[in-house]
């Protein structure tokens, strides 16, 4: 057996090689091939997804920067901008959970810093296989420890996210990381900044080593198969202390106005940072690899060019500012060599040891990658799966047992074991932390706060990817509105299987269509995101799981609405319940099936609910509000009771069977409570917004009383809810 040709080993197709030849007018040398290999990888070039992503709505009143830069930027008024982005680190985490997750946090934080913003919050949507399997426990514990180990050490609070469990994630855990930052609008480092010919490239931060050669870019552009563990050395190793210094030094450089540009080094390392910087400026670059500080003396050119060593940034500096830049870096103990300069023309010329080792057009690497319209086909059996709807199954379960089973299902149960390992408080702005509908973080020096929620609906997506994606947007916006914030814009991470399979590509296209429609209807444009393909092993892919990161704004954080009941209030259900158990938690846990149609979604009704929730918060009408989604009305009521230690007694409205009333996951609903004297105010406001508002009962006492169906003490429920995940971990 002969080895495959080099270009194929680097992940390039024969056609792609031909295209490179046409671009540079000759055969590429191995260094150039390595550069194209990482830059034209699926991870960096979005070659399978671009054609679909163009359909997303990306403009809006508040959007300052949409997709295409390091992160999206939204104007929140008073001269302030919020910068946010989500990304996947699933592939490295599948191989080495601690470092994979840790470096995911590091990478997304640098994306925010590269826009000139101080990171003020992180959120981590995670999905694993069932915790009954030992390997899944190892992945789960490792990922959580990695997020904490890195995030806690850099002083950015982890304020939210979600944790879900489903069999397809056994071999393919999904690790998404989101970071949010704040900056004065006039200090943002966007690609609009004027960059001069002759300006210098300063590489500051950690030295470059062999760790993570072809790391994320290559790992995340293939499926993981048997023997993938051997790729563990491709996973980068994080140094959060270096990251903390990098954050402070970068922000000081930005605050003092010393930079023309700032770029983080992530996937595809220095090749990506340099080619993107040059391409944006419409200039070329001379890059001197001899000036790059190395961890090992014998690194070869292609290794330096593609290393994904962590904790490095690239600054574009006018020569007149160089001394000041070097002084700042030195005070933070960071090396900061000049590694290149911007030159006329569009060429990227790389030298090492006095000779040219690569010379290609910068634009061809950064912006002229291939683009594919891949074939699509609906998966076989999808229609049958939808027809088999658990809503019409014969339910023999006892209501009380069913309730406790859903409450202690790992998808629903308390994630305290996870979030207590994260510093939620540092920076002193956390108004609402993990466990709430949305995290709420104050913007220092103002009354404003941002609300943040992440949502993925894998189960719904499996049954109907269009609806699953639209539900994810709707639920994320609802979560933000529930705490009283106006939903403004989204970022996302689109997690899918192998795009070369028509079924996966169809799921992807349907999901993007669902996001598009929902974001248009709810007026929450897409400011960027990340596509993570190849989340499959042995031909078995994860469910189509777009995860939505929603940003909302509270003009005054003191009007935040929390989920906790208070004794002596009245409980209302906003929105309507239909018999819709397809893809529900109840169907999976009690009926034992993941099938049927996901609940219908009427985006006008959804938007009306959000308008009502925000108006009610502004009018200070509500004691509590809580989104009614996973696990249905029963779980929403129980969660508001448990967090407060206050019970309730409700009548179950309508003439649906108990399991449909209590466990349907119909969209566009929330459970709220109000002081009796404010009940009329709420009813009137709901009528004005055209939202159904049904009285359920009242709060108080140690028990949760569900009509004549069943009752349980808050204490017993809380025990089931809190103990579920620790028990599965054997703790």
């Amino acid at each position, binding site marked *: 057996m002969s080895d495959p040709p080099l270009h194929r080993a680097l992940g390039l197709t024969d056609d792609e090689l031909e295209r490179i030849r046409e671009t540079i007018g000759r055969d590429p040398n191995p260094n150039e091939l390595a550069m194209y290999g990482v830059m034209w990888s699926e991870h960096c070039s979005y070659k399978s997804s671009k054609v679909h992503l163009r359909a997303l709505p990306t403009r809006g009143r508040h959007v300052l920067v949409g997709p295409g830069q390091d992160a999206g930027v939204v104007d929140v008024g008073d001269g302030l901008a919020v910068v946010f982005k989500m990304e996947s680190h699933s592939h490295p985490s599948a191989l080495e959970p601690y470092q994979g997750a840790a470096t995911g946090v590091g990478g997304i934080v640098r994306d925010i810093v590269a826009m000139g913003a101080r990171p003020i919050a992180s959120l981590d949507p995670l999905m694993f296989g069932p915790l009954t399997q030992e390997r899944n426990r190892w992945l789960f514990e490792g990922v959580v420890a990695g997020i904490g180990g890195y995030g806690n050490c850099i002083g950015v609070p982890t304020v939210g996210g979600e944790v879900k469990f489903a069999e397809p994630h056994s071999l393919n855990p999904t690790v998404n990381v989101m970071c949010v930052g704040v900056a004065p609008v006039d200090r943002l480092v966007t690609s609009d900044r004027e960059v001069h010919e002759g300006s210098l490239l300063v590489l500051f931060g950690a030295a470059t080593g062999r760790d993570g050669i072809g790391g994320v870019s290559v790992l995340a552009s293939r499926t993981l198969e048997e023997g993938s563990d051997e790729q563990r050395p491709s996973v980068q190793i994080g140094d959060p202390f270096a990251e903390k210094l990098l954050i402070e030094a970068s922000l000081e450089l930005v605050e003092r106005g010393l930079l023309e540009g700032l770029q983080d080094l992530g996937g595809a390392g220095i090749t990506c940072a340099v080619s993107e910087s040059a391409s944006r400026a419409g200039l070329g670059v001379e890059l001197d690899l001899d000036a790059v500080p190395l961890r090992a003396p014998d690194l070869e050119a292609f290794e330096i060019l593609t290393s994904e060593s962590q904790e490095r940034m690239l600054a574009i500096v006018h020569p007149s500012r160089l001394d000041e830049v070097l002084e700042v870096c030195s005070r933070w103990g960071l090396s900061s060599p000049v590694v290149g300069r911007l030159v006329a023309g569009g060429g990227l010329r790389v030298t090492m040891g006095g000779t040219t080792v690569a010379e290609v057009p910068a634009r061809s690497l950064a912006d002229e990658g291939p683009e594919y319209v891949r074939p699509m086909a609906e998966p076989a059996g999808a229609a049958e799966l939808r027809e088999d709807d658990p809503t019409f199954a014969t339910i023999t379960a006892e209501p009380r047992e069913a309730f406790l089973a859903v409450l202690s299902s790992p998808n629903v149960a308390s994630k305290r074991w996870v979030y207590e390992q994260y510093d939620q408080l*540092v920076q*002193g702005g956390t108004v609402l932390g993990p466990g709430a509908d949305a995290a709420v973080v104050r913007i220092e020096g103002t009354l404003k706060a941002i609300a943040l929620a992440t949502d993925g609906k894998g189960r719904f997506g499996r049954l109907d990817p269009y609806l699953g994606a639209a539900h994810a947007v709707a639920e994320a916006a609802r979560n933000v509105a529930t705490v009283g914030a106006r939903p403004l814009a989204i970022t996302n991470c689109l997690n899918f299987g192998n795009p070369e399979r028509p079924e996966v590509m169809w799921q992807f296209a349907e999901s993007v269509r669902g996001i598009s429609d929902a974001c248009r209807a709810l007026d929450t444009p897409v400011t960027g995101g990340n596509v993570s393909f190849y989340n499959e092993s042995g031909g078995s892919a994860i469910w189509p799981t777009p995860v939505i990161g929603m940003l909302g704004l509270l003009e005054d954080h003191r009007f935040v609405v929390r989920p906790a009941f208070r004794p002596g209030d009245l409980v209302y259900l906003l929105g309507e319940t239909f018999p819709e158990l397809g893809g529900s938690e109840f169907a999976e846990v009690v009926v034992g099936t993941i099938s049927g149609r996901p609940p219908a979604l009427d985006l006008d009704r959804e938007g009306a609910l959000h308008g009502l929730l925000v108006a009610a918060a502004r009018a200070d009408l509500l004691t509590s509000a809580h989104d009614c989604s996973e696990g249905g009305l029963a779980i929403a009521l129980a969660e508001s009771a448990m967090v407060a230690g206050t019970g309730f007694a409700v009548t179950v409205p309508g003439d649906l069977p108990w399991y449909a009333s209590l466990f349907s996951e119909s969209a566009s609903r929330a459970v709220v409570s109000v002081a009796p004297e404010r009940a009329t105010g709420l009813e009137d406001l709901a009528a004005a917004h055209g939202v159904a508002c049904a009285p359920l009962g009242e709060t108080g006492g140690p028990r949760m009383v569900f009509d004549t169906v069943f009752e349980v003490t808050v204490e017993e429920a809380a025990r089931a809810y809190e103990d579920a995940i620790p028990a599965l971990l054997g703790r």
Partner: protein
Amino acid sequence: MSRPPRIGVVTFPGSLDDRDALRAVRFMGGEGVPLWHADRDLHGVDAVILPGGFSYGDYLRCGAIARFAPIMDPVVRFAAQGGPVVGICNGFQILCEAGLLPGALIRNRSLRFICRFVDVRVETSLTPLTDGIVAGEVLRVPVKHGEGQFIAGPDDLARVEERGLVAFRYCAPDGTVDDAHNVNGSANAIAGVRNEAGNVVGLMPHPEHAVDPDLGPTGGQPMLSSLLSSALARV
């Protein structure tokens, strides 16, 4: 005319709660003065806080490198002269490493990082954080640490107890000290200790994250207001 007490907060490389400590000092009416690890003087502050974080990454023992920072010379002198010095979390670890406080902090009993609001019982009013607080009072403050389990050798522990050097203990909301509320498995549920002179105190919980009622419990308010009056006594 009196001026607000000036409270210095040291930033080491890797300090994380330094800005939070400064903000809390200002919230309580003091003047927060940022101090830099490489400085060799305290710029005339009336009290010093060593804040939380991961100084130098804490890749060795927590606080083991920070104790050698240039700023620590004047801090040690200031402490020897009776100046109020408070170590919070990583700052507590640094004070133990520097020999200004007895005992040491090791990994939590659970071996995991823990971020949670806890109750602590004030054990003595003879510290800059508890001056004016009656022993036995229970305050709600958060912990967030991976290495906060207080230990000491048998003789040291006996001395700490006999000499009344325990400043805070983890407890139930009603003040009962029991194993269930000992969040990290500390010896005798010790959450904070003081030196013999009573001017240096360290604790794992974060009073600076419990002052603003808009954000949560306010058990840090009496502690920081005590620090301000201790500092004022020197003005």
